């Protein structure tokens, strides 16, 4: 059997086509919905229940505070995706900073940003950032279509992994909450 190598340009084109196929696939998945207007329309002021997940990465600086106590400051960002027909939007980029103490618990602030740049602000309180620990968030306002938003949510860390050099990665599942928007979700940004 004689192996005849194919010209390199053929392979480049072939590999390029396959890669472009992957990009197209990703785009199709990513662009499945380009705005949040398909969420079930509810009058402004109605409570909207939602569930979701959050995959986050960032940094955590830990300061040992005695033999069995640790304190840390953290900064995490990632994709927060919501489910449920009443959800205020398909998803957000969620960014959180805070202070965490194995004994005193955690206090933080979180900003959710959607595809239009509109934001939702929330305050976080709960247990030390770690596997299985629970956190509660309270919406305290927002910008654009989320101006004046109120509500609350809770979640549990499925895992929080130190990836070395202060890098940390975590995932939240079972995020549940409700929000009351002053303006309907399809309203233009201010």
């Amino acid at each position: 059997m004689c192996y005849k190598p194919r010209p390199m340009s053929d392979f480049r084109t072939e590999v390029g086509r396959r890669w472009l196929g992957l990009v197209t696939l990703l785009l199709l998945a990513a662009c499945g919905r380009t705005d949040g207007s398909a969420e079930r329309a509810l009058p402004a002021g109605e409570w909207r229940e939602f569930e979701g997940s959050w995959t986050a990465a960032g940094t955590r600086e830990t300061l040992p505070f005695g033999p069995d106590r640790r304190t840390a400051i953290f900064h995490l960002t990632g994709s927060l995706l919501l489910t449920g027909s009443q959800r205020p939007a398909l998803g957000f980029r969620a960014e959180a900073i805070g202070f965490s103490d194995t004994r005193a618990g955690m206090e933080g602030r979180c900003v959710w940003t959607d595809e239009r740049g509109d934001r939702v602000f929330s305050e976080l309180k709960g247990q030390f950032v770690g596997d299985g620990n629970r956190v509660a968030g309270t919406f305290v306002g927002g910008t654009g279509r989320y101006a004046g938003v109120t509500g609350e949510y809770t979640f549990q860390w499925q895992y929080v992994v130190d990836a070395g050099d202060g890098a940390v990665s975590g995932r939240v599942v079972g995020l549940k909450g409700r929000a009351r928007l002053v303006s309907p979700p399809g309203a233009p940004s201010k």
Partner: protein
Amino acid sequence: MTAAANHKPVRKLLCLALALGIWFAPVPAGLTAEAWHLFAAFATAIVSVILNAFPLLTAAMLAAGAVVLTGTVDPAKAFAGFAHASVLLVVAAFLVANSVVKCGLGRRISLLVVAGFGRSTLGLGYSIFLTDALIAPAFPSNTARGGVLYPIILSLAQGNGSRPDDAATRRLGGYLMFCGMASLSVSSALWLTATSTNPLGVSLAAQRGLKIGFGTWLLASSVPALTTILLLPLILYRLFPPGMAGTPDAPAMARTELRRMGRLTRDEWMVAVVFASMVAGWVLADTLRLSLTAVAFAGLGVLLATDVLTLADMDLQGGTLVTFFWLAVLFALSTQLNELGFMGYVGERLTALLGGIARPAAYVILLVLYVLMHYMFVSQGAHVLALFSVFLDVGARAGVPVPLMAFSLLFASSYFSTLTPQAGSQNIIFVGSGYLTQGELYRLGLLTVGFCLLVYLVLGTPWLLLVAG
């Protein structure tokens, strides 16, 4: 002007159109404009290299310039890769490898290898895979292991008359270099302790109640991993014929040449001691809490202090600077793509589309998607952290047994590292040798990973169902 050169302006225009097309497309719900625009720049950079419109350095510089100047990524984050330990380890390993070749120790080791395995080029390929598979469990970093293998492979290539700039002999070196890359990926799947990514994945799998130890891992990986180790040298030989097959006289000639070389010189002793110390440092890094990069820097410092390497030698390492630039930029941009939520978003959306699909189909689709998504990553660890749990959850929800899904994803997290030149930091040192073109690297990468995927699906799946449930 060649046909390929004639097409270059068209390819560049296509890449520009792709970048602008994605950039100005509506931002998908759930993403931010920053994440979307960074994806436009990153995807265009990779596509432009695959289409041979630009070299990696050019593509990386254009992408970095675009995202920083438009305010998409903060400069400090875009340039963070220049201070990242993994990137610096690659650069230090490059420079240290130079000393092994320069002093003649690499040639001596390569002659020993040829004396044992050198009757054919294929034999040399097998010797690389077997050596790596044997030393892998002691090395928690496959980048460090690449730093050990590379100077020997480079000496093997040079010792057989192969030069990157010589079209007639280049393919032999290219074959051996890709064997080095591929062996690192498949040996990392064989042993739990062969790469730092494996324990990371195991700790995530433990969240689903799966306890995986050294023996459990080895039992699960043995059949598919050993099959790939056994077949890949031959398959690569067919895919990328090295242009030199049988060399029956080579072992005898190597033994003669070894006798002629005589005893180790002072520089060879020095390099051997420094290299052995570095290997010991890398092997014991976890136990002694040593930084892998600091071990490499210390070794390089000793080699410079003892004049084994000189500043004049450093001046000749322009290729290292090129590698440092593109690797640092792509590493940082890929990290940012993850931190801006893009990777998690796409992973969650893709897996959401699989709802209601039959269990076997869901298993295969999840595994293929997981592997293909590595086109967007420059770090195996980042990929595992971003997507492993997402895909494992969806597989479990679809009814795929958790041990099967977990092991398959864990093994894929090692063997997908040859998918692209930047898919794992251990590749970079081999890519920088210049023996393989970017097109060849992408083509061989795709075919190698495709073969591994096939072996793990066809052989690995029933084996895992048998031994892991």
